[in-house]
């Protein structure tokens, strides 16, 4: 490759400085994703959102592992627990002991989310209970920590199922067109005319008696994905319309590739960028929807999740502000993190949209 003198490069009459040159050099031969990652890294807000999201995901995974398997460390025989003795399934505390501390009183990090201190009801935030205790003496800090599992998992699973259904239907409609496209479009129109929040409440009320593993929230997740795939399908469909005319699809067809191969191996990877944006922003929306459902009493009162805690203590806002405030704050920061990250990803994946 020919080398160019640095001071010879001019762009719009401005000399390019050394940093930009290095940047251009690094971009040479880089794949799409490394370029996206570079753009994202420069976006300070976006990185802030990414840190929030990573922190929350780590928190959700850690709390799930602690709750399910913490006695792997203490008692190897109880790997799968003893269903008849609930106490054998879980320890009641997560403790931390440093050399120099008394062995009988280690630092208690988290309590079991269902464990209530009957003598420590409605305590304001303090050192032993950083977020205070709620009306039945449960430590709110622990409940926020362990509640992240359900809250985040519902957002992820709900959005993933929505995206999968929407992508499949949208790509079929976009690739084949004709009758399939008509049917999908009419269905989307129908589902779009209903306010989703109202329709999902209607469905929860109707299907509350269904017994499937996972309880009430599993029913909600399934129906949520069945009614909210429309937006994804429309975007994937329009992407397919523009991509299926391109030369690489022609070439692939000439080589004799099957339709499924063209759809899933060639066109879909090329329309991944909008999907990633939809997933990130959609997770925020789904978490918000589940919080709203729980807030209005359509959640699962036995689940440990932020929305259900918020529902339980929403009327104590004036007397005991910390009780509803911390669950609400957790929901707020989660939605904020995913929204910021989604916006930053949109700017990074498609710079034309950037303000």
């Amino acid at each position: 490759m020919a080398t160019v003198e640095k001071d010879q490069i001019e762009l719009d009459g401005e000399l390019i400085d050394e940093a930009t040159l290095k940047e251009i050099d690094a971009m040479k031969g880089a794949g799409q994703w490394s370029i996206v990652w570079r753009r994202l890294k420069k976006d300070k807000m976006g990185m802030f959102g990414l840190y929030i999201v990573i922190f929350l995901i780590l928190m959700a995974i850690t709390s799930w592992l602690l709750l399910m398997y913490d006695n792997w460390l203490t008692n190897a025989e109880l790997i799968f627990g003893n269903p008849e003795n609930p106490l054998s399934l879980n320890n009641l505390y997560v403790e931390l002991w440093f050399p120099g501390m008394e062995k009988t009183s280690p630092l208690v990090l988290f309590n079991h989310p269902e464990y209530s201190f009957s003598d420590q009801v409605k305590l304001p935030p303090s050192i032993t209970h950083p977020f205070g205790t709620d009306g039945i003496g449960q430590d709110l800090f622990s409940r926020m920590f362990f509640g992240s599992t359900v809250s985040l998992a519902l957002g992820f699973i709900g959005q993933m199922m929505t995206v999968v259904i929407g992508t499949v239907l949208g790509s079929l409609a976009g690739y084949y067109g004709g009758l399939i496209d008509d049917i999908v479009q009419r269905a989307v129109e129908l589902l779009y005319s209903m306010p989703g929040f109202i329709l999902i409440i209607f469905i929860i009320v109707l299907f509350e008696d269904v017994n499937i593993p996972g309880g009430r929230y599993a029913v909600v997740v399934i129906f949520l994905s069945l009614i909210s795939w429309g937006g994804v399908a429309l975007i994937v469909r329009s992407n397919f319309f523009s991509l299926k005319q391109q030369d690489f699809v022609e070439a692939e067809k000439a080589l004799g590739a099957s339709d499924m191969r063209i759809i899933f191996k060639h066109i879909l990877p090329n329309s991944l960028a909008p999907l990633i944006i939809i997933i990130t922003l959609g997770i925020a929306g789904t978490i918000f929807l589940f919080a709203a459902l729980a807030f209005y009493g359509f959640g699962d009162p036995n689940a440990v999740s932020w929305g259900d805690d918020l529902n339980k203590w929403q009327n104590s806002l004036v007397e005991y502000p910390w009780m509803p405030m911390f669950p609400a704050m957790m929901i707020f920061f989660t939605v904020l993190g995913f929204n910021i990250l989604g916006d930053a990803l949109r700017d990074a994946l498609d710079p034309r949209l950037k303000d």
Partner: protein
Amino acid sequence: MSLKGFILRRTIYIVPVMIGITLMNFTLINVAPGDPVLVRLGLIKCENPDCYNAAYNKEAIEMGLLDNDFYTIPWLSRYVDFLSGIANFDLGRSWYYTQAGEGIPISQIIKEKAPYTITLNVLSFVLSLLLAGAIGVVSATRQNSFWDRSLTIAMLLGYSMPLFWLAKLIMLVSFYLFDFTGVANKNAFRKPLFLNPEYYKFLILPTLALTLGGLVFMARLVRSQLLEILRQDYITTAKAKGLDNRAVIYKHAFRNGLLPIVTIIGSSLPGLLAGSVMVESVFGWPGLGTVFLEAALFRDFPLLMAINTIFPLMFLIARLLTDITYVFIDPRIKY
């Protein structure tokens, strides 16, 4: 085609969509597990199974599930009955809202409650549109200034704040500042409604919450639309021929930015309606949203069905209106 023909066609188009929606709701209610007759019967006290069966049959006949000879009425004919009921504005009787031992007709409940929802929604929709326009213009014309940055961050924070919690916080702040929680009481709804000063007093906080909810969504949209348009060539031309900034923004940029904004707002109306359900129930505003949530909590199936029909209808009409406004915004569009 003329505008009249377009409006007529779009109005007729509402009918098949509504049939699809009612069909979906009706199918859902029919495939749902559990016996609605049992829900309706509740905890009836009976000494022997005969009395119980008689009560069950009587209830089932009343609900239209069995005919007078105790034969099950087929699904399709029940659906046709339901549709003809809707066509005659007869939506059946509520299970939960009762008067003198009999359910209140649902059409009466809706006639009573709809004005509250409509005032609240229209008022906050107009307010949030105006404010969003102002904020969008301020942000877009002074891009990356202090005002733009702080407004963008405020919009992002508001966008991430759950609407129901925003409503609760507004309530809390108002309680500490003015000792007024805004939870509606009987005084607020004494007739005549529109001459009652109390009514407007209690309207303030729900409107504020709902306006903020819509505002944060729309302001982001207006800003990004305007920014995109301000970069176009014809804006440069307008500036080059010596127009002042105000004329460039309001005459050239704003009108062209309106079309995509109206499109997206039109398609996001169901979200705004859902927002009104959330806000209404927090403030105890006796509109359709509160009625819907109460009906859902007390498993009032006929009322749920009715509101599930009314809300899409309201949305479809609102979308028809947005489609018609296109014509006035963009003279290029001809029907």
